[in-house]
């Protein structure tokens, strides 16, 4: 494998890894937000009873 092919491969790996890091990071943030909101909703439900 020549130097250019190795660099090409590294750039493809970087692009795919960054894409998945952004997408999965965003989903993780959404799920944490969802969980926190569920707790708030349960607390409000308890207070109103």
């Amino acid at each position: 494998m020549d130097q250019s092919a190795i660099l090409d491969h590294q750039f493809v790996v970087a692009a795919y890894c960054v894409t998945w890091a952004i997408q999965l990071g965003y989903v993780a943030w959404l799920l944490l937000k969802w969980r926190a909101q569920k707790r708030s909703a349960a607390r409000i439900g308890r207070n109103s009873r």
Partner: protein
Amino acid sequence: MKKISIGLYVAVTIALMVWGYYQAIYVAPDEQTMHEAQRIFYYHVPSAMVAFLFFAVSLAGSICFLAFRRNRPQWAQASDAWALAGAEVGVVFCTVVLITGPLWGRRAWGIWWTWDARLTTTLVLWLIYVSYLLLRRFAAGPQVQTLAAVLGIFGALDVPIVYMSNRWWRTQHPAPVFGGGPDSGIKDPAMLAAFGWNVLAWLAWGLLILGLRYAVERQHQKIAAQEAQEALDATN
């Protein structure tokens, strides 16, 4: 039944993502001039297509919010949730485009960035929708949703400019893959299949997180309404 449907959709989406990855990395042949670096295309272009679609969702949500805000408050709140979800998930996909693009450009052109029409208009689009999200996050008061809806509509005006930029102006960015003239289009069937599978996979993934973001926003609206009611009850 709803849980089973969602589980099935998640399973199909994951299968599509795995299949799309396999097609992009192992099945599609190397492009003649850009070689392996061209495989970034299979993530870069579908992400741009999905981002455009979700900015259109945000536009529709913003228009519906403005139309319903006086006489149908429930519909207006749902429209506002779609507008926010579309803008936020669109920004996520647009971020992917703005990171994978320079990675590809560095190998194809030898530079990370150039201020050509396609790249600049895409950056402006991203900045407009980031400002939309900052407005939603940090501004307070009864007019925030209305202001955001107006900004969302103005932001969407940049989408056709981004799409047409490499048709209207000479750019460093490659010519349109589809609909760009007699020479446009993917000629190799294996490349076309890999591209098609990845478009489908990223669309399925995007719709999944769009639905999740919408559900989170609707839950947030319900909690805000309950808290407002609680505060009202406490004062009476």
